């Protein structure tokens, strides 16, 4: 049986985290290929529907990452993102989503090793937790 390779969707803000991921690439810092990065202009623009849609489409884990609090290019993005994330976490918890599947991070441009580390951690955890329960849909009634 092939080993389960979790699929992670990362929403990375253009100015910080996306740049960090980019630099990790150019610096040849390895991080697992399980992640697909979606560049957003700011973590504050991440709407819960993106995360939910990602799970609907089969993601095993989702990362929402952006600048640190005071560094945001648009000033208060991270604040908005935190507020959104707090509520979203409660919603998906109620859904029974395992904690490991949805993660929030603040990663600045210069912190590419941290980015790689986060991805490594997530992949390891998700391998243990297994495929997302949302992958398997119920059979419709005949």
């Amino acid at each position, binding site marked *: 049986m092939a080993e389960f390779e979790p699929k992670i969707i990362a929403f990375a803000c253009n100015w910080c985290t996306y740049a960090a991921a980019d630099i990790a690439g150019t610096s040849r810092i390895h991080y697992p290929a399980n992640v697909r990065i979606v560049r957003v202009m700011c973590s504050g623009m991440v709407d819960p529907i993106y995360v939910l849609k990602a799970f*609907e489409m089969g993601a095993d884990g989702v990362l929402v990452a952006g600048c640190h609090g005071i560094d945001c290019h648009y000033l208060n993005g991270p604040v908005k993102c935190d507020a959104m994330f707090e*509520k979203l976490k*409660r*919603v998906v918890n*109620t*859904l029974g989503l395992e904690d490991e599947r949805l993660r929030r991070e603040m990663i600045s441009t210069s912190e590419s090793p941290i980015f790689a580390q986060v991805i490594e951690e997530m992949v390891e955890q998700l391998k243990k937790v297994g495929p997302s*329960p949302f992958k398997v849909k119920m059979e419709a009634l005949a």
Partner: protein
Amino acid sequence: MNLEDIIQETKTYYCLECGKCTSICPVARYDPAFSPRMLIENALLGFEDELVFNQKLFSCLTCYTCQQECPSDVDFPIFVRKARTIAQDNGQHGVCAHSGQLQSLARLMTSPTIKQKRLEWLSKEYSVSENSDVLLWVGCAPYFEPIFEDIEFRALDITEASLKVLNLLGIKPKLLTDEKCCGHDALWTGDIETFKKLAEHNAAQIKEAGVKKIVFSCPEGYRTFKLDYPNYVDLGCEVQHISELLAEKIGQKGVKFKEINKKVTYQDPCRLGRHLGVYDAPRKVLESIPGIELVEMKHSGWESICCGTSAWTNCDSYSNLLRTERLSEAVETGAELLITACPKCQTHFRCAMVDKGEEHRPTPKIEIMDLANLVANAIEEGR
């Protein structure tokens, strides 16, 4: 299912194009592009695309005001519901409010292997029992709590109040740990696949629980279980709204109420009123509480005006105008309190009353409370 089939099934061909429906439709009153008559006319003339790709197809509130007066007895809401299935097949789903989170949640719930944590809120204050004959349906309340925090609406307040009321009436209901969304919104927006999956799951849960009656505090869940589920699954038990249960018990058990001196008015939810014909039970409950003075709004009973949004779809400025009109009617009665019997109505009214910085168009404000909460406050302890 194609359009021809829908016309045949719903007997829409009887439509006389008289326009009576549109003249009393709450949406048509504000949205000049929405006309129930035009939607049917397009269908009857075979203009399927004009119907299916019309964004306005999803603006119908399915509130049933039109059908109360239609001389040809056309069931317009069901016609719309079925037309929306064709729309969904064509990738149309209207404009989803709250960026589609609520619709997405319903779809996510169809996964058979999730393990929900729906009862974290349940405290020792309330008594439940595994062996009860009566099930209290909790519904989407645990999910609404985080989503609607900003408008200061905690749907679980209604659930807790319902539990408290049941306890005080001597009922320790069962609560399911793995309830899923009743599927009302999916059904009414034409997402039959999601609806069927949810229905099957819930029916199996109910069968396993072996209860004789399910009590609802949400009229949408109540309507769905009562009228829609039987077309797809077999429930094998009775369903009832909490206002009906209260109306029964108040007569029988000599329930004692504290005096609450308030002038109140009552919003008939579309699903409880026009869909199911339950107008008297909530009023009987209100009138049994000493000190409560019930004043009716200008349009009450079967003429009640819908709260403005259905199935979290096509919620727009016209919906807001409609809500404002209804809140004005409530304020005009001079009542201190607007009593609702539906968490959706309460959500939408509260949203309207949140100050959106429109000084030029202030929304009339009134305190809102669910019937269950009012009763929970009023029942005397230790009977």
